[in-house]
């Protein structure tokens, strides 16, 4: 999404029209609105089908919520480092921003590794996507989330690769504004997924 | 009911298209004339649009109000049936299960008929419809009755045929390659013929299936819809 039109957009000033929106940020919000509908629709369906089956019963009780909780903690921490990276980029401290960013990306990788072990454990215990409707949902929902996280990690690494000492000031700050927005969104999605597929089926 | 709606919307249609055509003809470009400068943003000018809109809205409401009892009659209520038949749709055919003289399903005197649904005229027939594979739809054009049949649900429907005769049953939800050939026959018999039919299929018992039911409704509406 990086492009020269960002600069062109700024070149329009002075404006009679209040268009102080940063294009990247605005575009990202539109994108996230669409994404919300995808995840929201999936979660809504999950809830409704769950109700129609009278809860998920024993199928859902095997999910490893402790690992899930630990993964939530990892994502929270990754967002913290992302926020710190944004702070560093704002004061034009690219090296520090890069360090924080790599922490964010590595925490993302850690999340995926733990998720991988979790999937392997589920498979070992016979909980494949075909085991029950709950597990079908479980894999589709978390799988979709994993894909999003993976995309985020790729973008973060790409961003770190692109920042060189010659990068113009403010470039990283602008990019981070919407890349981090995406990261936080993926995190917010996870919060609901965690509640829906980990906590709710095991509670009570 | 349907006719009424068609008349109402038909009138709207003719009026609107007529206006459109009249405007196109009336206001063809003439040399040296200028078009009127009408923005149509003031309420006064907009009222030329809003008044027809209000009329349309009123007719809409009227149609809905009139449609409500019809819908309720067909889909939400079920008059006491003279005969209940279980219907199973499958790729590509129909299976009708009669409860037999005892009026209960799942007993040995149940009768399964394929393709042919035989019913007495002038009685309310209740169908309990299930599907064995994909979505089908029970459609009898002459009765104006249509109801989709969803696998995993038992869907009720009812009808009352007043005229004896043979009617076609069609599937009206795409259900596979031979969807078009998924034809059944609805045989509506006069009460006497029907008695004969019953005694052929259940020779032992005197009573027809569901004979004890609370009797046929006198048919005021005639057909559905």
């Amino acid at each position, binding site marked *: 999404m990086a492009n020269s039109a960002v600069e062109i957009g700024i070149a329009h000033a002075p404006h009679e029209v209040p268009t102080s929106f940063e294009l990247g940020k605005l575009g990202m919000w539109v994108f996230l609105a669409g994404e919300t509908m995808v995840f929201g629709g999936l979660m809504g369906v999950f809830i409704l089908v769950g109700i129609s089956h009278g809860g998920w019963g024993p199928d859902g009780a095997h999910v490893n919520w402790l690992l899930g909780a630990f993964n939530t903690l990892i994502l929270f921490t990754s967002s913290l480092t992302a926020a710190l990276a944004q702070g560093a980029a*704002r004061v034009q401290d690219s090296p520090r921003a890069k360090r924080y960013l790599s922490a964010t990306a590595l925490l993302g990788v850690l999340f995926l590794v733990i998720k991988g072990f979790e999937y392997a454990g589920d498979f070992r215990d016979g909980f494949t996507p075909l085991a029950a409707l709950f597990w079908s949902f479980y894999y589709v929902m978390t799988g979709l989330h994993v894909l999003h996280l993976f995309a985020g990690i790729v973008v973060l690494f790409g961003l770190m690769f692109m920042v060189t000492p010659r990068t113009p000031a403010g470039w990283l700050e602008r990019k981070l504004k919407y890349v981090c927005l995406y990261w936080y969104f993926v*995190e917010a999605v996870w*919060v609901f997924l965690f509640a829906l597929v980990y*906590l709710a089926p095991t509670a009570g | 009911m349907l006719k009424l709606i068609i008349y109402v919307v038909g009138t709207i249609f003719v009026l609107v298209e007529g206006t459109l055509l009249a405007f196109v003809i009336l206001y063809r470009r003439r040399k040296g004339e200028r078009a009127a400068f009408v923005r149509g943003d003031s309420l006064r000018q907009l009222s030329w649009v809003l008044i027809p809109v209000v009329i349309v809205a009123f007719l809409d409401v009227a149609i809905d109000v009139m449609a409500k009892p019809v819908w309720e009659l067909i889909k939400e209520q079920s008059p006491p049936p003279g005969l209940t038949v279980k219907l199973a749709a499958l790729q590509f055919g129909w299976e009708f299960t009669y409860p037999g003289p005892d009026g209960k399903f799942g007993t040995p005197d149940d009768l399964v008929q394929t393709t042919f649904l035989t019913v007495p005229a002038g009685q309310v027939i209740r169908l309990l419809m299930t599907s064995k594979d994909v979505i089908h739809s029970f459609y009898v054009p002459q009765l104006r009755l249509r109801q989709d049949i969803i696998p995993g649900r038992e869907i009720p429907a009812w009808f009352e045929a007043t005229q004896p005769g043979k009617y076609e049953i069609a599937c009206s939800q795409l259900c596979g390659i031979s969807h078009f050939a998924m034809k059944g026959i609805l045989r509506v018999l006069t009460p006497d013929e029907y008695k004969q039919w019953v005694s052929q299929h259940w020779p032992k018992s005197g009573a027809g299936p569901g004979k004890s039911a609370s009797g046929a409704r006198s048919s005021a509406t005639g057909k559905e819809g």
Partner: protein
Amino acid sequence: MEQTEFSASDSLKTWALLVVLLLVGALAVPLGLPRSLALWVIFAAATAQAYVIGRYYMRLRSEDVLIYTLALLPVVTVIILAFVLTPDVAMHR
């Protein structure tokens, strides 16, 4: 757009808040609360977490109305969708 700067200590505070909320939600499981109460706690905690993320990390607290609309419109739509589907999908059995 940002009238307020978001400092490192703010980030840390947000993180701590999130962790506390995570504990609140997750503890509903081992504590063995009654199921309906546990569900309330879990989803209240999740909503609160999403709110904190949105408000502080995604900077919604200093955003324009338009961004708010963009963020809330899909949420509202999904909720409406779920509610309208409830009688048919969830209740028919």
